């Protein structure tokens, strides 16, 4: 099998398994919290998903508190845009999104493992996966923790830039730590890992309050982080295991 085909084959297989497992974990863990938070977001206006047609009449209104009114600017959705209906359809799209995300990250992980030339087995894969967890969840989540709908936040684009920058910088730091055995490399690695947090994540505008209770937000951070730990450990271990089997 050609190298590219074996990478794609491994990644699609791994993505299907991990996407399924994570969707189940989300179905039990994060999704109920998101749905509960959306009730606060729509000001208790019944039918759950704020992006659905039901929200169209009220133009995604967050209620009439001043804080919510300013937030609406940043948080506005095009009310006419299509969104999956709550229930089965919505969960089905979540499943597709999770499988695609898992395939995407598996392609990245397997490609990098291939470039590094390390032997491939489930344990080495697991270590790679845990590094992915650090680079793509812990580090960005340290500054921008997983958010429930209705949580005040800085403009989306700024957060996306900081998120991507943090993931890239942390990944580069980890690569230096693992593949360069010189002291300068270790020092540079620490700087790269610390730098995004010295710069600081974009902060939400002052005076805005989360719509969901604090305890619920905290629970969401914990559950989302644990789900991500499951995602990355499975992704890494399975990639390491299958890539060896499909190797040319």
């Amino acid at each position, binding site marked *: 099998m050609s190298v590219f085909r074996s990478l794609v084959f491994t990644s699609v297989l791994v993505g299907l398994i991990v996407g399924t497992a994570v969707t189940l974990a989300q179905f039990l863990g*994060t999704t109920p919290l998101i749905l509960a938070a959306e009730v606060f977001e729509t000001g208790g206006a019944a039918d759950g998903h704020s992006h659905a047609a039901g929200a169209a009449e009220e133009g995604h209104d967050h209620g009439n508190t001043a804080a919510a009114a300013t937030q609406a600017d*940043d948080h506005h*959705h095009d009310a006419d845009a299509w969104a999956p209906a709550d229930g089965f359809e919505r969960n089905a799209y979540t499943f597709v999104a999770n499988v695609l*995300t898992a395939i995407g990250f598996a392609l990245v992980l397997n490609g990098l493992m291939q470039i590094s*030339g390390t032997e491939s087995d489930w344990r080495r894969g697991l270590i790679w996966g845990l590094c992915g967890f650090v680079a793509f969840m812990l580090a960005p989540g340290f500054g921008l923790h997983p958010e429930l709908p209705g949580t005040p936040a800085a403009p*989306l684009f700024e957060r996306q830039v900081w998120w991507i920058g943090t993931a890239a910088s942390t990944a580069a730091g980890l690569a230096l730590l693992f593949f360069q055995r010189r002291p300068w490399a270790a020092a540079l690695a620490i700087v790269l890992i610390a730098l995004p947090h010295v710069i600081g994540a974009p902060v939400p505008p002052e005076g805005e309050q989360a719509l969901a209770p604090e305890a619920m937000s905290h629970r969401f951070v914990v559950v989302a982080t644990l789900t991500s730990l499951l995602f990355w450990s499975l992704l890494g271990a399975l990639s390491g295991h299958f890539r060896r089997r499909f190797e040319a």
Partner: protein
Amino acid sequence: MSATTITSSASSSVSRFAPALLSVFFGLFIVGFVGFSPMEVVHNAAHDARHANAFPCH
């Protein structure tokens, strides 16, 4: 003789790196599309997954 060896080792490293790099970029493209697309429809479809994976949302 030595030129042949160099060429063949260079081409084998290209044949190892090029597909691997392609795989990395292809993967980043997919993750970018699902997690970072500004398109409203893509956002709505992937909404719960985005929140749970801690991609910046809204």
